[in-house]
């Protein structure tokens, strides 16, 4: 059984290698025009050159930072708003229709008005990112705070717990798994919107760089940029999954 597992892992690696190899062969044979289909070796060389020129880490940091700010902002607002809407009837009655209207709006549709208000600035980018990344957190938090065990709420009421303390000590921990589910979706959206705003507003970053690479037909650099963006998405998601496991360890321990 274990031998089979190892075999499958090897096969998976072999498959990935075969894909890259086929890509190399197809590119070398010029089956597709090298203008938009550079070989893996050329792509890798472009990546190395980018690093040497200092065109890798700085734009990556710029993209990641903007994404991070927007995401943190969205997470804070989302959790607070989600908690308020879930735990308070009046707040729900006042806000729900407005939010229901805003929610299906494609986040990128906010870009034109955001540019009108804030210009082509980082602030505009962070605002757009935060707006788009808000909804999954808000929904996750709402759901999480709504489905707090009623018995826990009764207990807290019997113990005359203040409602702020109740939210902080009881409701929040119990809502945390739902919040994390939302926060993870938000992170992916934040990366997407970071790239979009860079392209639209000429902000420094990986998204802007790949657009520039396209404009001057430097396709290896374009591919390298796409790969780096993929890696950024992969790693940020992994980091969040690990944090989640850490923070929610008590759940598996108590069960």
């Amino acid at each position, binding site marked *: 059984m274990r031998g089979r597992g190892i075999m499958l892992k090897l096969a998976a690696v072999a498959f990935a290698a075969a894909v890259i190899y086929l890509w190399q062969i197809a590119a070398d044979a010029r089956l597709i025009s090298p203008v938009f289909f550079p070989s893996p070796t050329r792509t890798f060389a472009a990546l190395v050159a980018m690093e040497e020129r200092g065109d890798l880490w700085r734009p990556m940091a710029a993209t990641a930072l903007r994404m991070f700010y927007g995401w943190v902002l969205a997470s804070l607002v989302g959790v607070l708003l989600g908690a308020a809407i879930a735990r308070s009837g009046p707040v729900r009655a006042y806000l729900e229709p407005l939010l229901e209207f805003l929610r299906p709006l494609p986040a990128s549709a906010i870009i034109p008005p955001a540019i009108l208000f804030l210009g082509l600035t980082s602030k505009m980018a962070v605002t757009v990112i935060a707006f788009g990344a808000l909804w999954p957190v808000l929904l996750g938090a709402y759901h999480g705070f709504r489905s707090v065990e009623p018995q826990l709420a009764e207990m807290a009421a019997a113990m005359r717990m203040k409602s702020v303390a109740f939210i902080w000590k009881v409701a929040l921990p119990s809502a945390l798994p739902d919040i994390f589910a939302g926060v993870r979706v938000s992170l992916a959206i934040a990366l997407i919107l970071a790239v979009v705003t860079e392209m*639209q507003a000429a902000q420094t970053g990986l998204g802007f760089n790949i657009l520039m690479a396209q404009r001057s037909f430097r396709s290896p650099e374009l591919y390298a940029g796409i790969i780096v963006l993929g890696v950024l998405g992969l790693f940020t998601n992994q980091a969040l999954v690990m944090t989640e496991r850490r923070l929610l360890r008590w759940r598996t321990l108590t069960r």
Partner: protein
Amino acid sequence: MKLARFRGLLIPVVLVALWEIGARVGTLPPDTMSQPSAIAVAGWNALLDGSLLLETAQTFQTALLGLAIGTVIGIALGILIGLSPVLEAVIGPTLDTIRPVPAVALIPLALLIYGFGVRMEVLVIVFACVWPVLIVTVSAVRGIEPRLIEVARMLEMPALSRMRRIVLPAAMARIAVGIRVGAGVALVVAVTVEIVLNPQGLGYGMIIAAQSLRPELMWAQLLWVGFAGWAFNRLLTTIDRRWLQRYQTGGAR
């Protein structure tokens, strides 16, 4: 019940009223916050001269084409992976590595390959909406009653008709959920590609309105995009309820 509905409208109505008054009095900058009445007029005119409908048709056409292609790929790949654990172990890791690439990162590449137009937009949309369909299909196929597949094997059904008659119907209700998610993604990505650079559709209309300093038209289009998204979602929900959920009972029996 009626009162609660009323309260929900309070904040939007007050905001719009303040907006209108502020714009009339002149405290709000007219080059960004044109008054709601002007927005309504601009929206009405754009609707009457057909430009709004044309843009809507372009955006939806592209989104639906991308969704259709993405759905076919997602379902086909999802069924294969769902039925064969070996295949999943072999190609799963490669797919998992590609998946976090943000779809919008492909915009420059798509532009390089196809130039401006429908095809580049479709390419980006396909990449974006394959994933939800694929993931849901894999888990839907896994969730099929194993006896159904055994029976099909015993009857020596050919692989293709086994797919068509057993696997697809049994998994359809759940796959529909994935398609609905994909449809939302497709519309968002379409508008996004248009806002970033593709000169067609609703997204481009908004950008042009903003750049030609017609904020009232831009706001009208923003509202329209919101409405179109909402209506599209309603339509999909209805289709799902009317025609697809009956497979649910059929599959569970």
